[in-house]
């Protein structure tokens, strides 16, 4: 029984990799080959799909747009959440519990509920089709998440740390940035990872709030699919490329992931 234990995770990983392999397989085929033949690997290996994406600005700008608003949102969410999480972890104040639950309810709001009002609202303040609009709208679910995770990490730091620093004559600002932030660096890393992840994978709001100038890659994919026939090879190549930023981010935070989950706050 024990001898075959490794089989379960292995089979699971094989199951996870199969659709990804299929997508990569398709991305190296021409659309004609995809439609006409079924094969486990490309018969006529081609990179023309990738060449098209890297030379056509409507395609590669999609990636630039997605990464721009994702990074902007990550920085904004973490910067705003840091002081708030500190307040929740250290102080009692009027309405703190209600405020915390209210923040969480926004993580629970179905984006479909907000799509239309968001569109009207951002149009009326002239932010429609900008990176800022998407970054701001993603704050709706990323800020509550960031506060929640950071609060977990901060509560694990004993309060004595703060008190000792004040006794040593640190001002609040110096203590916060010189001592406290480095102490919870791992937690900040995890939080940035999750903000990046949820902003990167979200499409409904990003698509609703953009037209051309800030159009995310995911929307480029769906729109191209409907306008220029069904270019499966191109679509598969674009899809494969969207996996890469995530894979890079996972690689860098792999040691923190398990630790972050262990804090029980993700």
């Amino acid at each position: 029984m024990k001898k075959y234990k490794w089989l379960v995770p292995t089979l699971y990983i094989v199951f996870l990799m199969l659709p990804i392999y299929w997508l990569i397989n398709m991305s190296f085929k021409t659309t004609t080959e995809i439609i006409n033949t079924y094969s486990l690997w490309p018969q006529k290996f081609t990179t023309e799909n990738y060449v098209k994406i890297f030379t056509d600005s409507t395609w590669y700008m999609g990636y630039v747009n997605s990464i721009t608003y994702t990074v902007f949102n990550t920085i904004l969410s973490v910067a705003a959440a840091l002081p708030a999480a500190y307040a929740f972890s250290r102080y009692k104040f009027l309405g703190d519990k209600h405020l915390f639950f209210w923040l969480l309810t926004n993580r629970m709001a179905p984006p479909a509920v907000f799509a239309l009002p968001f569109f009207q609202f951002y149009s009326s303040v002239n932010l429609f089709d900008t990176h800022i609009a998407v970054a701001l709208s993603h704050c709706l679910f990323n800020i509550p998440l960031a506060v929640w995770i950071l609060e977990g990490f901060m509560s694990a730091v004993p309060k004595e740390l703060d008190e000792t620093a004040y006794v040593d004559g640190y001002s609040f600002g110096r203590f916060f940035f010189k001592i406290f932030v480095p102490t919870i660096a791992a937690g900040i890393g995890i939080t940035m990872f999750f903000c990046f992840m949820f902003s990167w994978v979200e499409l409904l709001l990003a698509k609703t709030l953009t037209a051309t100038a800030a159009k995310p890659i995911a929307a480029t994919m769906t729109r191209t699919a409907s306008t220029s026939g069904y270019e499966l090879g191109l679509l598969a190549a674009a899809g494969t490329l969207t996996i890469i930023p995530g894979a890079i981010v996972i690689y860098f935070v792999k040691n923190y992931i398990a630790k972050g989950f262990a804090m029980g706050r993700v």
Partner: protein
Amino acid sequence: MNKTINQKAWLFVIPVFVLVAFNAAIPLMTVVNYSFQETFGNNVFAWEGTRWFKQILLSERFHAALGRQIAFTFIILLIQIPLGIGIALTMPKKGWGVPVCLILMSMPLLIPWNVVGAMWNIFALPDIGFLGYTLNAIGFDYNFTQQPGDAWFTTILMDVWHWTSLVVLLSYAGLNSIQPAYYQAAEIDGASRWATFRYIELPKMKKVLTLAILLRFMDSFMIYTEPFVLTGGGPGNTTAFLSIDLVKMALGQFDLGPAAAMSLIYFFIVLLVCWVFYNLMMKNEAQS
């Protein structure tokens, strides 16, 4: 930790409060506004009272979508939670296998949702997809674009593929926080594998599992992009879950009043369930 009372702490919370309120309160008020009125465009409104709410609550279309949604979420939880725990229990605890498992298992979580839908579409197509082709080759009459049963099967399989890893990672973290002394004690007592799981591992995982169920409930109840790209809600309306139905009503038919009323009812259901879970979680936390 005993916290000090400090009303000035509000100053720290203001940036978060403003950003979230700006994003949540204003659009939510728009929805509330629409839900009680009839709109004629050009900002002309007529008061309708609770008419839209009654209409939605009594409509068969809403009942059907809600029924499908509840069935979907229920099946998802029933598969993903036990499966996730099982995989976490069999994962290596140290050595080179740990980072390999963590990296590969996190992959599906970081793929944009519409790419997940598109990927599964290509993967499941009966003529050119690996899954569809294989199922047909071994004798199943499988076509997810035509047969409702197959569409459900594919949607559920896709969600299991997409999200089981989250349950795995959470359970794995919960298991890792158990001190080796517990296992040694169990061994001395001659506890069976099942007893170890039932009386040591499961209670220790209670907190992370509540969280896993909560997250999986919320996200599967709000699911939109993946089934929209995979099946478009079809064939017919058989996989049109609440969000898909809502977007169809709001942006497709521009029935703003009923769509707004439906949004609020939808949000209310999610909120109610989450409130119960949140209280459970806080109770657990207070105990430990």
